């Protein structure tokens, strides 16, 4: 398959993730949609790595995976903290940055 097909799949997945971040009010699902967008970027990176024949894209894809894991950890910690304070788990309700 040509590299362009992989890039097209990556673009579609990225758009689905972006729409999901905007549409869904649940922060858990928003984190999942962020994962979708990061994975789309990963797919594009690896496709370009295949195109050039160098390992640099794969190294960056692994770094992106590490960053995604960190983001998930902190995001889920925030969600657990929100839940402990008996607040609604809804990004439309949580629109104030007040301690």
């Amino acid at each position, binding site marked *: 398959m040509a590299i362009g097909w992989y890039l097209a799949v990556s673009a579609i997945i990225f758009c689905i993730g972006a729409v999901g971040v905007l549409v869904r009010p649940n922060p858990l699902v928003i984190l999942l949609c962020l994962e979708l967008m990061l994975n789309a970027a990963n797919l594009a990176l690896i496709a370009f790595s295949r195109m050039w024949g160098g390992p640099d894209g794969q190294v960056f894809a*692994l770094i992106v995976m590490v960053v995604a894991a960190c983001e998930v950890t902190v995001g889920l910690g925030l969600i657990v903290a929100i839940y402990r304070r008996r607040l609604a788990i809804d990004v439309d309700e949580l629109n104030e940055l007040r301690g």
Partner: protein
Amino acid sequence: MSAVLFFIAAIVAIAGALGVVMLRNPFYSVLALVCHLVALAALFLLLRAEFVAAAQVVVYAGAVMVLYVFVVAYVGGTDVSAGRLTGGAERPSGALRVLAPLFGLAIAVELCIALLGTALRGISGKGAPYVLGFGTPEQIGTEFLTRYLFPFEAASLLLLVAAVGAVVLARRRRGLEPDEEPVGRPRSRPAYTGTMAEVAGLLSPGRAQRADWAAASADAQAERDRRAPEPTAPAPVAAAAPEDGR
């Protein structure tokens, strides 16, 4: 053969992504994301990125998704907004709900223009000729420890900071949040507001204030002992009863 595999994996990946966005229950969203990640690992394999595909399955679909499943099970898997959509007119996301698909469509059109109108010739080809050892753990590891040593160390530091930050964020903080009320256990209450055992000096106020289960269950025991011989209870028992009902 590789074209068939590509189309199967791509369709499963896109369907999984759609499932993440469209399914109401966050639990099913997580499962759809697992499907999506496995299909994406197949795409990585087709691109000859063996090590990244293995890491994708082991780290993402294994570890990170387990974390998600635990948090979804802890927080409760229901979508909070599902029942509240009836009064959606004053929701701030009311207009966003219409505009967001348009925005997504705009990004899609833009990316399609970028893909179709690119001057990059390699996009229409199958990629560089495959050399032995491309994408193996050996090659990736060599790159990480030689040319990309600084990103590697920065990533390890980032992981450490994220782990510490998650523990700090999710730990139980006194005074910031209401007390947990576990089901089926006696609830804690201030000292000298309830039972005769405190008045009689059987329990020190410090112990009662610390609200440990031993003191609370001792309170409940004393309450039961007191209530048994005197069925028609006066006011103090009536005041204490709703607390014990929890």
